[in-house]
C-alpha cells in the first residue's frame, strides 16, 4: 500500500521564524523606497514650488498619474513591461522602483506644502542677514517647513510601508506573501494573518511613537 501523502501540516515554531524573516524583507523594501522616495519627493516638491507653470505642465501631471493609479496596477504593469524596454528587474527591484516613485509622488506635495508653510517675511529676514538662496533653503525653510509637515510625512511613510504588501503580487516573499504561503500549507488563515498583522503593527508602532515624541520635543 502506498504511504499517505500529507499535503497540510500545522503551524510550527519555525514558521514564526519564516514570518520574521519576511517582516525584515518588508522593512527593508520599505526603508529603501521611503528614504529614496522622500529625497526625490523633496526635490519634486521644490520644483513644484519654484517651477510655477513650467512645473505645472511637466512634473505635476506625471506625479498625478503615480498618485492616482492604484499601486497594484503600477506594479504589475511595470514588472511585465519593463523587460520589453530591456530592463530585467527582479520582483524586489521592481517593487523598490515603483514604491519609490509612488512615495516621491506623495511626498512632493507634502514637501511643497512645507515650503509654503514658511512665510515670505521669514525668508526675507533670512536673506537680509546675507544668507544665499540655498542657505535660506537649508537652514531656515527645511527645518521650519519640515517640522510643519512632519506628521503628514509620517502618514505617507506608514502608508507606503503597509502598501509594500502589494509587492507580493510580483512574487517577492515579504510579509503578506509569506503569510499566503503558510496559509496554503497550514490552512490556518486566522492565526497566520493575525501574526502577520502583529508584525506590521510592530513595524509601524515604534515609528508613530518616535514621531510623536519628536513632535512633543519640537513643540517646546
Amino acid at each position, binding site marked *: 500500500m502506498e504511504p499517505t501523502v500529507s499535503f497540510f501540516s500545522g503551524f510550527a515554531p519555525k514558521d514564526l521564524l519564516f514570518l520574521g524573516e519576511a517582516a525584515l524583507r518588508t522593512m527593508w523594501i520599505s526603508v529603501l523606497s521611503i528614504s529614496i522616495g522622500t529625497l526625490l519627493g523633496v526635490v519634486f516638491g521644490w520644483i513644484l514650488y519654484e517651477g510655477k507653470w513650467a512645473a505645472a505642465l511637466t512634473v505635476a501631471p506625471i506625479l498625478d498619474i503615480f498618485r492616482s493609479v492604484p499601486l497594484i496596477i503600477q506594479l504589475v504593469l511595470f514588472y511585465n513591461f519593463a523587460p520589453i524596454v530591456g530592463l530585467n528587474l527582479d520582483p524586489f527591484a521592481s517593487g523598490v522602483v515603483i514604491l519609490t516613485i509612488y512615495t516621491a509622488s506623495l511626498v512632493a506635495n507634502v514637501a511643497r506644502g512645507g515650503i509654503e508653510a514658511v512665510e515670505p*517675511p*521669514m525668508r*526675507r*529676514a*533670512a*536673506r*537680509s*542677514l*546675507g*544668507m*544665499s538662496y540655498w*542657505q535660506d533653503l537649508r*537652514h*531656515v525653510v527645511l*527645518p*521650519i517647513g519640515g*517640522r510643519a509637515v512632519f506628521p503628514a510625512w509620517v502618514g505617507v511613510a506608514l502608508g507606503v510601508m503597509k502598501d509594500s504588501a502589494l509587492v507580493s503580487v510580483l512574487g517577492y516573499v515579504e510579509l503578506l506573501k509569506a503569510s499566503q504561503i503558510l496559509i496554503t500549507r497550514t490552512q490556518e488563515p486566522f492565526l497566520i494573518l493575525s501574526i502577520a498583522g502583529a508584525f506590521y503593527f510592530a513595524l509601524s508602532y515604534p515609528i508613530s511613537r518616535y514621531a510623536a515624541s519628536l513632535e512633543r520635543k*519640537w513643540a*517646546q
Partner: protein
Amino acid sequence: MIEIHDLHKYFGSLHVLKGINLNVEKGEVLSVIGASGSGKSTLLYCINGLEPVQQSNAVVDGTDVHAKGTDINKLRQQLGMVFQQWNSFPHLTALENVALAPKIVKGKSKAEAREIAAQQLKHVGLGEKLDVYPSALSGGQQQRLAIARALAMEPEYMLFDEATSALDPELVGEVLETMRMLAEEGMTMICVTHEMGFARDVSDRVAFFHQGVMEEIGPPEQIFGNPQSEHTQKFLANVR
C-alpha cells in the same frame, strides 16, 4: 555712505517710488515718516536689494545695490535689517538664532559665533535668555532678538522697517530704548517709523514721504516745528 539717486520703483503699473534722491552719511540717524502706502518701507527694501527696482542708483559704500555684478549677499552683511514682524527662527534658541548667520554666512567657528551671539544678546538686554526658544519670549523681546541677530553680522548700517508697529503698546518702549542706544553708539540708521517721539528726539534728520515722493527732509526741529509742505503739515496734524 548710502547714496540714492532718482530711484523709481513700480509694482506692476503702480508707481510706488517716484524719483527719490537721498544721501545718508555715516553715523547719521534718519527717520522716515509718512502715511501707510507712501513707499517708506519699499525704500528700505530697495536699499538692501530685497525688491528689484526699475530705475535707480542706490549705492552703498560705493557699491551699486542693483548692478548685475554685485554680490548682494555680501552687501547685505553691511545692511542689518529689522522688520515689522520679528521673524525669529522658531526652531532655534535665542543664542542659535543670533549665531546662525555669523556661522553659515561669515564662516565663523561655532564657538566664535556663539560668543558673538551671547555678546549681542547681552547688548540688547537679553543676556538672561540665551537658551530660551522664541516662543517663550514676548514680542518686544523677540524684536530685540531680531536686532541682536542683525547686529551679529557687524553691519555698517541698520534699517528699521516699522520695528515697533506690530508690538503691544506696553512693549514698544523697550524696543525704542534699544534703538536709541544704538543711535547713541553711533550706528548709522534709517528708521521707517510711526513713533513721532522717537523721530523727533533721536534722529538727525527726518524725511516725510507722501505718495511715493519725498516731500520734505530736514532736521526734526524743522519737520515738527515748522513743516514747509502742506502734506507734512496735514499728516502731522493728524498723528498728534
